[in-house]
């Protein structure tokens, strides 16, 4: 069976129900946490999975030689918070429940650059979320969780829509600068909101 066929079977049989159960679980454990705008989960679409599976590294070689077992965001979860301080608080709370094999703040490589910002984790599925009736060979052992502010989320969604459409021409230099400008604005807005929140919270 092709990689696409195998992923389709995985998508239909296990990814969707596991994603739904994960969302329910995350909503429950975070129900007492303030300033969470939304919690969502999704299985990676077949098109997006295949796009990633065929990706090439900078040397031109395939990035994944076993994509079904190497791509870790086949199930993705996202938590959107109001302010920057909320990201760390929610992150700490999630890590009380889930085992992380990776945790990082994704930032632009250079301090002079603006672009994508977000808090990412690769977390293991506790067996509670896995139906024992599933074909265990189809069940991924981990999922990716992104925790972002409203502004970080808004920027990354628009950036993805404008900059990563399959078949589109790459963005020109000035267009990239415009996207960096909007990221800087979102970064500034997050900073101002967070400072205002801290000030109001102290009062």
């Amino acid at each position, binding site marked *: 069976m092709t990689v696409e066929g195998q992923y389709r079977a995985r998508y239909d049989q296990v990814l969707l129900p596991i994603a739904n159960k994960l969302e329910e679980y995350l909503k429950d*454990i975070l129900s*007492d946490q303030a300033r969470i705008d939304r919690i969502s989960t999704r299985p990676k679409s077949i098109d997006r999975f295949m796009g990633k599976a065929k990706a090439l590294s900078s040397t031109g070689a395939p990035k994944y*030689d*076993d994509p079904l*077992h*190497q*791509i*870790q965001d086949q199930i993705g979860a996202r938590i959107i918070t109001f302010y920057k301080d909320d990201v760390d608080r929610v992150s700490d709370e999630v890590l*009380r*429940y*889930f*085992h*992380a*094999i*990776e*945790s*990082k703040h994704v930032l632009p490589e250079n301090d002079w650059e603006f672009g994508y910002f977000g808090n990412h984790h*690769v977390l*293991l599925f*506790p*067996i*509670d*979320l896995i*139906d*024992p009736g599933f074909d265990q*060979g189809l069940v991924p*052992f*981990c999922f990716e969780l992104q925790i972002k502010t409203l502004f970080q989320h808004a920027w990354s969604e628009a950036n993805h829509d404008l900059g990563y459409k399959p078949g589109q021409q790459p963005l020109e230099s000035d267009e990239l600068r415009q996207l960096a400008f909007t990221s800087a604005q979102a970064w500034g807005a997050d900073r101002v909101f967070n400072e205002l929140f801290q000030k109001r919270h102290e009062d």
Partner: protein
Amino acid sequence: MPIEIVHTYLVHPNKNQVEPIAIMGSPVPHEGDMFDLMKSVYEKADTECNIGIAFKKAPSGAQVNARRDMLTAYGAAPSVELGRSLAEQLGFVTTRRSGLGLLFLIKGKEGNDHKVVISRFRANNGVLVNEAADMLTVEFIDRVFMKNAHSYKAVVYRHPSFQGGFWNGMAVDKQINSQDLESSDYWVKDFLLSDFITSPAFGTRRLAVALKKAIKATDDLEIKRQITAAATLASGLGADPINVEGFCQKFGFTPNAKAAVIGQLDRPDLATDNFLFNAEEFKKQLPLRTVELDNGAMLTADAGSFDKVFEHEALADGEKVKFSTVGAVVSEKLEKGR
């Protein structure tokens, strides 16, 4: 034949030793009683190892773990040398108290899955007896390695990909429930650089939610009483290993009460999945509120509905409060005073 290769190493207690003793290793031939024993360890690992563990991320948060790197390097191309790196690391965390051990690395293939079993037999003392026609000869030996019921340790990993998988496995550690932290941390935390997949908060929430659901689901007042009493007392438990079944036993649940609780789990095998009890999480999930008055009365209700259950008004003197509630008496109990 699923077993591809077996290596064994004599692991000395080299922790904090200025001059650690070299670790010797060799392959185990695919024949004879010794191989039969290895086959049994390999096959039984799937059922004996019942504690979910996973490698820890690097302190920087990166998806890197030195022990996993050694495991996957060995699994991909098993050799005495690559296995020795794992054995040496075990030696570096082994104290004299944990003693000399015999480490086995067993690599096999099960369908699409690669499977690696790591197992440690602890050294014991023994007496070798030879029976002749008219006499016995006895000899003391201190290097008898046994699959000891009290100290046996093993872990099994299986996944189709060494690159993408082998982050989690199933372990058995007969000393894991020990109150002695040195013994309980030695295999999983110190050697395997791993942690339990079921975190204290996750496992405790699982238990508390099952108790909560069982109370709601049953009409049996005796079951409700047992669960309520246990839940009230449990907030005082320490951070010790426990599982749902063990909790029911600890608080003397009747078979019906135990079945009512276990029946609320997402899957029955979760009943024996161990975790460290977390009192904070338990209180978060089952938050009972108790008000104690200076006249000896104690009023208890679910914190969320306490103020609806008990109406209260401040009296004229400003110090006293009058509580009132109306309902039918459904149970009554005596408890030991504090």
